[in-house]
């Protein structure tokens, strides 16, 4: 019995992120549409899209290999596991110790690795463009992310997200420059990693600056559905991560009972809605960058992260 309850908590978290991910995408799209004075599709449109894609036949290029068919599931699994390990509505879940923040970043790296490979499998030039640019973006975004992890870990004394969230909620944090810098850097990384404006445009096809869409161009049917779901999960992961590090309120404590859990879920939903709306607002108010401005943008995030980690040395613990 002592095992069953935390197990249920962990399973609830996994299902929660899976269930909410398309909703978050829907909220972002709706916000953008309303800001452009369109009515926009309903917020549950992404669910309908997924269901439609799942029902359809998968059309595979003639020379696609086994890697091309397995990659979507691998990408999905790595992203799902990563998203399930970020505290959403409760801290101290059963398996939260099985991977820390560094490992979560690395899972996303695994997903990216296979996505880029899948883009190159059929041997079309669009796939190559996407994979090559994704490799560039990843090779700058990942170290920037790692610097953010450094900053947070040096402040909280742990890379374990549950511990970090608990620390961030305590009054011991105070105002810190390094955290502010880390937040800016994290937002930049999140935009780049999720193929959002100004780095990539999630709404276009047939544009030479596209990255993510170029890699998945050949996918269709259930494979595309799985990849789209993984992309939504990744967005959800980053929003949850930002919320968990910089808005660590309203978490249900471990073994807090149903009422606490329900409150935690409500708080989490509010955070998601706010995050989605802010993202939509940001995306409508900024223009897409040229691809070769992106390294400077991400380089700035890397520098900010490094600066934050360095500043950590001059704050308080003198």
């Amino acid at each position, binding site marked *: 019995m002592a095992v069953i309850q935390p197990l249920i908590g962990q399973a609830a978290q996994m299902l929660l992120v899976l269930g909410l991910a398309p909703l978050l995408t829907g909220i972002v799209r709706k916000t953008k549409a309303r800001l452009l004075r369109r009515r926009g599709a309903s917020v549950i449109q992404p669910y309908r899209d997924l269901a439609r894609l799942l029902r359809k036949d998968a059309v595979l290029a003639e020379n696609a290999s086994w890697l091309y068919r397995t990659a979507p599931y691998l990408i999905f699994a790595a992203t799902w596991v990563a998203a399930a390990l970020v505290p959403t509505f409760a801290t101290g879940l059963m398996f939260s110790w099985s991977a820390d923040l560094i490992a979560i970043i690395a899972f996303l790296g695994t997903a990216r690795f296979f996505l880029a490979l899948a883009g190159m499998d059929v041997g079309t*030039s669009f796939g190559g463009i996407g994979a090559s640019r994704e490799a560039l973006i990843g*090779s700058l975004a990942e170290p920037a992310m790692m610097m953010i992890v450094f900053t947070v870990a040096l402040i909280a004394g742990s890379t374990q997200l549950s511990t970090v969230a608990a620390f961030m909620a305590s009054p011991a944090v105070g105002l810190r420059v390094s955290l502010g810098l880390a937040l800016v850097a994290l937002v930049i990384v999140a935009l780049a990693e999720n193929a959002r404006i100004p780095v990539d445009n999630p709404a276009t096809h047939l544009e030479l600056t596209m990255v993510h869409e170029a890699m998945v161009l050949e996918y269709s049917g259930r494979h595309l559905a799985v990849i789209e779901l993984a992309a939504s999960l990744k967005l959800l992961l980053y929003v949850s991560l930002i919320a968990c590090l910089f808005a660590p309120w309203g978490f249900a404590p471990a073994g807090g009972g149903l009422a606490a859990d329900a409150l935690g879920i409500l708080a989490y939903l509010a955070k998601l809605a706010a995050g989605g709306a802010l993202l939509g607002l940001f995306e409508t108010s900024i223009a897409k960058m040229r691809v070769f401005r992106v390294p400077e943008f991400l380089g700035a995030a890397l520098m900010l992260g490094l600066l934050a980690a360095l500043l950590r040395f001059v704050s308080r613990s003198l």
Partner: protein
Amino acid sequence: MGVVLGLYCSGTLLLAAIAAVPLGRARLGSIAVYAACLAVSLVALINALAALLGLAPASDAVLPIGLPWLGAHFRLDPLAAFFLIVVDLGGAAASLFALGYGRHEPAPRRVLPFYAAFLAGMNLTVLADDAFSFLLSWEFMSLTSWALVMAHHRERDNARAGYVYLVMASFGTLALLLAFGLLAGPAGAYGFDAIRAAHPGETAVALVLILALLGAGSKAGLVPLHVWLPLAHPAAPSHVSALMSGVMTKVAIYGFVRIAFDLLGAPGWWAGMTVLVLGGITAVMGVLYALMEHDLKRLLAYHTVENIGIIFIGLGLSLAFRADGMILAAALALTAALFHVLNHSLFKSLLFLGSGAVLAATGERNMDRLGGLIRRMPRTAFAFLIGCVAISALPPLNGFVSEWLTFQAILLSPDLAQWGLRIASVSVGALLALSAALAAACFVKAYGISFLGRPRSESAARAREVDAWSTGTMILLAALCLLAGILPGFVIDALAPLARPLVGANLPAQSAMSWLTIVPIAASRSSYNGLLVFLFIASSGGLAAFAIHRLASRTLRRAPPWDCGFPEPSPFAQYSSVSFAQPIRRVFGSVVFRAREAVTMPAPGDARPALLAVTLRDPAWDAIVAPVARAVGFAAERMNYLQFLTIRRYLSLVFAALVAILLILAIWQ
């Protein structure tokens, strides 16, 4: 048992080397020699495992050869045992692979004797317990590997590779010779025991450390001493490349660890700082070099440089922590570095063997003439993929675990006493993260261009899967990568008896943790569970696939690629390795390599093809090697005229030298 068995193994390998000279002519000769090497390596491997796991006590032996008053001392302690495992595991894998691959060798007599002797040399270097036999075995290892590099000496670049390698190897041995000379002190105590007991002064410690960095670093491929490595490693036959890259560089690491951690006592914090910064630079430079490369084997060789950098980052951190008395952190950093030694030997051997399989199947090393091999060589492609994931430090494979441990060690650096060291270690952390991310890009490129897409040449289109020995070896190594990745606790525990004598502490026993989690410091600080993570990913991926196939759709149609409606039939419309690396080249290359692109566009109506030429300059070569070479050439030019003197002049030169030495002695005393 113990060291005696190890020596017997080395002796047998030497005998096999001699026997290989006549056997090389025989039809099944190479199979016999490789089988013998395999058997001996396996015995030595088990012997070393027993020694590391404490089943056999540390043992030593003295052979009445070498210097008459000294003899040759050998010893098998945990440090030697661990590196012996790396050597013999790599040796066994390369030999097993060569059982099949050796058949493609055009001139087996140039390879077989040196191959066995090379294995013996590496074994003896690790076993040696006095400076004399260490240096002798080291030089033996260098020379035999040089002979293997020169095995295909008629190919255009190989002669130059061999020449550069020989010069750098001699330079490295010279540096080590001087280091041991300083360590031995005026009394000439060459035994490692005597060296350990002596306490050299501060200047001597600094000099020895720098010389050891030069000597071992040049063999391991530390930037800027790496210039020979990407020339020499790919020039050898592929199973030997695997040994050189995966194993011989580790023997060099062993040399450095033995000197800096064991023999030298306790160097100050500046030593850690130096090693740390050099390691960080090496890691990023190595992977940038690799990204610019389009020759598969040279890419792998350059990538070895990156991994050597990662290992040196761990070693530098460990030295720094030890100097500040943080022995638990020192143990963590050392464990991370040594874990990476094991990991790199596994996946780099795997990848080099894979490149050998590709070479055997297609005759091509240039990635821009490969492509689509995943459909022609499925087993090789699968094993190579595992190797790529592992080397890119992606979970749940083994490369990630050692980098994770290194990151954990870096996160302890704020407790260090020196400001400079703290800032350096955070900056090096950024470099490490950058190199890890670039490594993933590099192997997306290597795998995507060589194995995926459409074949870019006739030979790639007609490639056939290689023999069962070769594929079996690769899959075995891939399985070991996975095992080390999901059960890292056992490896960490095996490294514990090694860390204790070197830094004074070891990590807490990991295999006792619940669910086989690894917890380097404290559970509230960080933990990672490779097994659980692997199970999670496998089960959620499998579950998703099962559910979708069961509940949604499972039909599949094949159709021509879509490519936005404009598919281009020519395989050259695909991204090539040069175009894949173009964005990264623009960001990093223009600064680091002074990369320039020149486009020659013929006038309209002109039938000549347009040409894109990329030029890269190697900063290490330009800034260090070339000036040194010029200086040496200049000095040689000046000395040249000494060859044309009269006898009387020569005699007077000798006379003057003698008098000068006597004068110095007189003044000195």
